[in-house]
C-alpha cells in the first residue's frame, strides 16, 4: 500500500476565540476543527452565517492568530519558520473575498491594482511586474486595454476577475475562496466558477471554497465539510454529503435549499428547522445542534457527540450517525430496487 501523500493543508483542532462586545464574554468563532486538503483538490466548506467559515479561511492564510491548534502547510508549521521564510512562504497561500469593490482601490487603475501585491512584496523590476500583471490578466480573460480603466468602469464579474488576476501574480498554491460569487449576478456566476476550475486544471491549484450556496458548492467540490457554530458536523466526498447526508443538520440544510424545479419534479419532504442558530457566546451544552434538532434526546443535552469516521472518508459528529447512515443506505438500496423493477 502506498503511503498517503502529505496534505497541502492540515488543520488540527483549530480554536479561535474573540472578545465579544459584552464585557468579559468570548465568542468561540472556531471551536475545535480538523481537516486535511490535498493538492489539486477543491474542498467546499458550507454552513450558515456565523458558523465560523470566514474565520477558518482567514486562519488558514494567517490573517488571524489561532487561540489553539495547528495549521500545517505541506506538513510544515509556519510558526517554526523565520519571519523572512514565513513572508516568502505565505505568498503561496492567498484569499479572495466576496466583494471585489472592497478589494480594489477606486482611484487606482486596474493595472496598478494587479501589480500592487508584487510591488509590496518587492518582487522584480517595475517592468517585470507590469509584464507579470498583464500575463495574469490575460490568464483570467481580461484584455490589455482594461488595465488603463478604473474599477467603476467594470462589471462585477470583470472586477472579480481582476481580483483573481492579482492573486495569481503571487503564484499561489492554495487559494481560500470566501463567497467569491455571492455578489455576482446569476448570469455570470458560471463564468467565474468556470474560470476557477480552469485555473485549477492548468496550474494545479488547491482551493478551500467557502460558500453558503449549496448548489455552487456541490457543483465544484471534491469533498465538502459542513460547519455549525464553529464546529464541523459532517465531512465527506461531495456526492456522499449531498446525496446521502448523515448528520441531521446537513439534511435540514440540503432540504431547505429551494429547488428551481417545476412542481411535478420536486421530491422529498422538507425538514423545517425551528428557530435560528444560537449565539456562539453561549452555545448549548452537549451537541451544539440539539436546540434545533428533531432527533435530540437526553444524551444530546449532556454529551457532545464524537467526531468519527462513519463510512470510508465520511465523518460526522452525531450520537446516532451510524443509525442514520444505515437508514440512508437502506433508502438508497430501495430506491435502486424500485428503479430496476420499473
Amino acid at each position, binding site marked *: 500500500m502506498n503511503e498517503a501523500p502529505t496534505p497541502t493543508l492540515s488543520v488540527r483542532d483549530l480554536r479561535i476565540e474573540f472578545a465579544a462586545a459584552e464585557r468579559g464574554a468570548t465568542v468561540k468563532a472556531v471551536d475545535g476543527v480538523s481537516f486535511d486538503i490535498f493538492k489539486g483538490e477543491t474542498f467546499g466548506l458550507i454552513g*450558515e*452565517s456565523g458558523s465560523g467559515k470566514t474565520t477558518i479561511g482567514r486562519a488558514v492564510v494567517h490573517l488571524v492568530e489561532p487561540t489553539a491548534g495547528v495549521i500545517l502547510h505541506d506538513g510544515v508549521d509556519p510558526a517554526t519558520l523565520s519571519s523572512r521564510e514565513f513572508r516568502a512562504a505565505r505568498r503561496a497561500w492567498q484569499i479572495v473575498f466576496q466583494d471585489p469593490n472592497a478589494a480594489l482601490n477606486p482611484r487606482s487603475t486596474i493595472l496598478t491594482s494587479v501589480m500592487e501585491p508584487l510591488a509590496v512584496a518587492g518582487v522584480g523590476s517595475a517592468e517585470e511586474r507590469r509584464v507579470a500583471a498583464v500575463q495574469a490578466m490575460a490568464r483570467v480573460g481580461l484584455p490589455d486595454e482594461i488595465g488603463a480603466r478604473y474599477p467603476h468602469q467594470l*462589471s*462585477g*464579474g470583470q472586477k472579480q476577475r481582476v481580483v483573481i488576476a492579482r492573486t495569481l501574480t503571487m503564484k499561489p498554491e492554495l487559494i481560500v475562496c470566501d463567497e467569491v460569487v455571492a455578489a455576482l*449576478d*446569476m*448570469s*455570470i*456566476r*458560471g*463564468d467565474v*466558477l*468556470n474560470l476557477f*476550475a480552469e485555473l485549477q486544471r492548468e496550474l494545479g491549484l488547491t482551493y478551500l471554497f467557502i460558500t*453558503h450556496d*449549496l*448548489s*455552487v458548492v*456541490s*457543483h*465544484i467540490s471534491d469533498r465538502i465539510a459542513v460547519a455549525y457554530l464553529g464546529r464541523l458536523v459532517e465531512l465527506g466526498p*461531495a*456526492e456522499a454529503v449531498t446525496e446521502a447526508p448523515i448528520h441531521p443538520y446537513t439534511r*435540514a*440544510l440540503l*432540504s*431547505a*435549499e*429551494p*429547488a*428551481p*424545479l*417545476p*412542481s*411535478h*419534479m*420536486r421530491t422529498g419532504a*422538507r425538514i*423545517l*428547522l425551528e*428557530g*435560528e*442558530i444560537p449565539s456562539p457566546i453561549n452555545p448549548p451544552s452537549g451537541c451544539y445542534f440539539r436546540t434545533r434538532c428533531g432527533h435530540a434526546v437526553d444524551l444530546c443535552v449532556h454529551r457532545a457527540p464524537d467526531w468519527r469516521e462513519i463510512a470510508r472518508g465520511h465523518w460526522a459528529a452525531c450520537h446516532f450517525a451510524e443509525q442514520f447512515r444505515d437508514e440512508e443506505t437502506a433508502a438508497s438500496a430501495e430506491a435502486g430496487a424500485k428503479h430496476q423493477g420499473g
Partner: protein
Amino acid sequence: MSISFAMAGGRQEATRDVTFSVSPGERIGVVGESGCGKTITGLSLLRLLPEDVAHISGRLDFMGVDLATCGQEELRGIRGRRIGMIFQEPMSALDPVFTVGEQIAEGLRAHGNMSRAEARDRALEALRSVGIAAPEKRYHAYPHQLSGGMRQRVMIAGAMVCNPQLLIADEPTTALDVTVQAQILELLRDLSDRGNMALLFITHDLGVVAETCTRMLTMYAGEIVEDADVDAALEHPLHPYTSGLLRALPRLSARRSALPSIPGRVPVLGQMPAGCRFRQRCPFAVDGCERPQALLDAGNGRRVRCWRFGDLALPGVAA
C-alpha cells in the same frame, strides 16, 4: 407603466411598458438581473419613488383606484393597510428607537381608531403568527437586539397585521440563511393561501420562485420579457433570456462540468439598444431583431417579448 428618472444627461427611461395584473391569492415572482427594474417597479406601486426625480406614466389600477394619480389621502389609506411592503434589509425599515412591538401597534393605530390595549393585543398576535416564540418578551425588544431572521419576521408581522390584499416583498430572504429562508417562505405561502392575499415577490433566486410563486415575470433591461405560469416557464421557457437564466443554474449541470453563462452585460440606462434589448447577448439574434419587440400573446395566458418564440425550442430546467 413606465418609470423614468431625471438625470444629469436628461430624462432616462428606467422601465418601459411594464404591464401585468395580479389576482387575489396569486403569487407572482419577478426575476431578472441586478438593475433590470424589479425594485423600482415594486416601489412605484406604492408611489415610494422620489417624486422630484421619478416620473411614472401609465395606470396602476388597484381595485378601481389609480395609484399613479390618486390623492395623498387616498394613497395613505391604501399604503401599509391594503397593500403591504417588506424590504430586503429590515434594519433600514425598522425604527431603532422604538421596540418592535410598539412599532407594529403604532402602525395599527395610525390606520384605524383602535385603543392602545387592542393594538397591543393585535401586535402580539401578529408576532405569534409569524413564528416568533415568546412574543410577550420580544414585544419589548429593540430591532438591534434581534437576529436577521427575527427582524425579517417582525417586518412581515408589521405588514400582515392589517390583512393587506396585496403584499409586495422585495428580496425578503436574500440576506437570510437557507434554513431561515425556508421558514419565511413557508410563512408567506401560508398567509397567501389562508388570507387569499396576492403576493408580488421580487427576487433573483429562481429556486425561491419555483417554491413560492404561481406565476413568473422575467424582466430584462426595464421590460417584462416573459410572463408565464411558474411550471411552464421553468420547463418550456419561451424567451432566450429566461432560458439562459435557467441554464446558468449550477444545480442542474453535471458536477464539475463547465457552467453555461450569458455573455455580456445588461445595457445601462441611456444606452438602451433600439429593437430587442437582449439582442447583443442573444444566441438566436437574426436580422429582424433590431425591430422593437412587443410583448406578444403566446396562448394559455402566456406573454413573451420575442418575435421568434414560435421558431425556437428553448431548453428549460428539465432539459
